[in-house]
């Protein structure tokens, strides 16, 4: 992975807290669809999906990169992570049209955004366990 692009990470490598990474209205609506158990299960699942996808977009196989970026775009858009959805869409398009070299330039910043999204989800998961 390209380290220079990780500019948004905090000093210890953990992402800065950025609540704007996910539209709270969209997330709240999703998280309040079921009961408490459902809420924490969904948080955990989303975190796990984003971890998986964040790693998968760094695959040497460019078709896998495009596929994962596409999947990430759909998930990010659905949970209100608009910025990440846009980045994933660019990555998907670039991977398909311009190939591996061009795509790899976008991977780092996309992964940083994934980290910010995961941070917001972790906060939401804590809220639910506290409630």
């Amino acid at each position, binding site marked *: 992975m390209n380290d220079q692009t990780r500019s948004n990470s905090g000093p210890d490598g953990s992402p800065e807290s950025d609540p704007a990474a996910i539209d709270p209205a*969209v997330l709240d*609506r*999703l998280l309040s*669809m*079921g009961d408490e158990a*459902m809420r924490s*299960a*969904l948080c955990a*699942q*989303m975190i*796990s*999906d984003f971890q998986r996808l964040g790693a998968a977009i760094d695959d040497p196989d460019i078709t896998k990169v495009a*596929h994962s970026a*596409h*999947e990430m*775009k*759909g*998930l990010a*858009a*659905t*949970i*209100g992570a608009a910025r990440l*959805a846009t980045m994933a*869409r660019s990555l*998907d*398009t670039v991977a398909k049209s311009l190939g591996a070299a061009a795509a790899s330039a976008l991977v780092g910043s996309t992964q940083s955004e994934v980290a910010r999204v995961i941070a917001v989800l972790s906060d939401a998961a804590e809220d639910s366990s506290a409630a």
Partner: protein
Amino acid sequence: MNSQAPLSDTILLIEDTPSLQMIYKAALTRANLPVETCGTAADGLAAFARLKSRVVLLDLMLPDRAGLEVMKELLASEPQTCVIVITANGSINKAVEMMRAGAHEFLVKPFDDQRLINAIENARRSLHHRPRSTLAEARIQVLPPFIGHSSAMLAVYDKIRSVARSMATVFITGESGTGKELCAEAVHKASARSAGPFIALNCGAIPVGLLESEVFGHLRGSFTGAISDKQGAAAAADGGTLFLDEICEMDLNLQTKLLRFLQTSTITPVGATKPRKVNVRIICATNRNPLEEVRQGRFREDLYYRLHVVPIHLPPLRERGDDVNEIAETLVTQMAREEGHEFSGLSPRVRELFRNMAWPGNVRQLINVLRNVVVLNAGPLVTPEMLPPDLLSQRPMTTREPAAPTAPARPVLGDLAGRTLAQIERIVIEDTLARHNGSVPKSARELDVSASTLYRKLDAWSKAETPE
């Protein structure tokens, strides 16, 4: 209802992203809809074989197989199934392909739970509307009020019936008078929303500046002349069908707004700040070649693909074999009854003539000719002498030139000598309008300019003539 095993009410959800699976499942469960989920095409097909779900939610991008193949397999084993395709943004073209292959509807991620539930309810409603046993017989039948058994038209009826069960946008093309509006109404009537409104809006007949508020409505005071709130056609069609006729006459700015409407199913009336959800099925029509309009930059390509999901082309009357005589015989007796005259059909000579005529105005032209004949004559058969002389002087259809709506008047250059270009333009436009009974869209088509161009000119002339 019939001998086959009944389909199950359990919705089958095939989606590979686990979080999305959970989210969709939670939305369905909350709406009391039973659901079973699968993450791969293989699992999905196996579950389908067991469940025979009436409604399947299918993600396009599955890890093991393409969604299109999966859908084809589902539909091959159970043609009654309603497949709702789920896709992320970039794959609109894929979704179009899926609709053509028989998908019921497609949802573009992100969509909210209400949109999902609506889609499923629409699918279920259309299933109630589909008595299976009569489907096969209906396929070979004519679709009233259409008249004509030509194979070209049987294919059209078939298409209308099959598209009616879905929510797919229908794009109707065909020359003037071929029955595009009739076709739009037929789709609506055969659909599960037939009890809802059918709202037709002719985009070519409304001045450009007013079209937006005609489609989306406006609030009182949002512009000069907006003296009260107005409900637009999109809102009026809520729960039913919105027919956008002469869609290619819509200006680019409004095309953008229409695209947004199609993507979000929400409308924002002129002057309003809050969007509002509406549930409409869109049908549009044009007698232009829409792809050519796209090529010329007059029609947005993305909107074209969004609208052009299921194309229906109405063949010109001259390509429908003996349909012309079937239509004529049916209508002439009907009209004669209205007029109190005794017509029972066409003479063999007229049948022969009708079959070989080019009919540039298609069925509408035929209707006008017959009306003329029936009013002015007593019967019992329509003979060549009764036909309007200009009809007989029309070129027969062996000439391959594109037919003009009416025979254009020969230019008499002498009359124009000494006039300015602007004056000549006005003479030509007024003459064209007169020949088309004042129809701006038709005149615009003949002059190959947009209807809005003509409206602007008419507007300018009338302003110039209004005394201060």
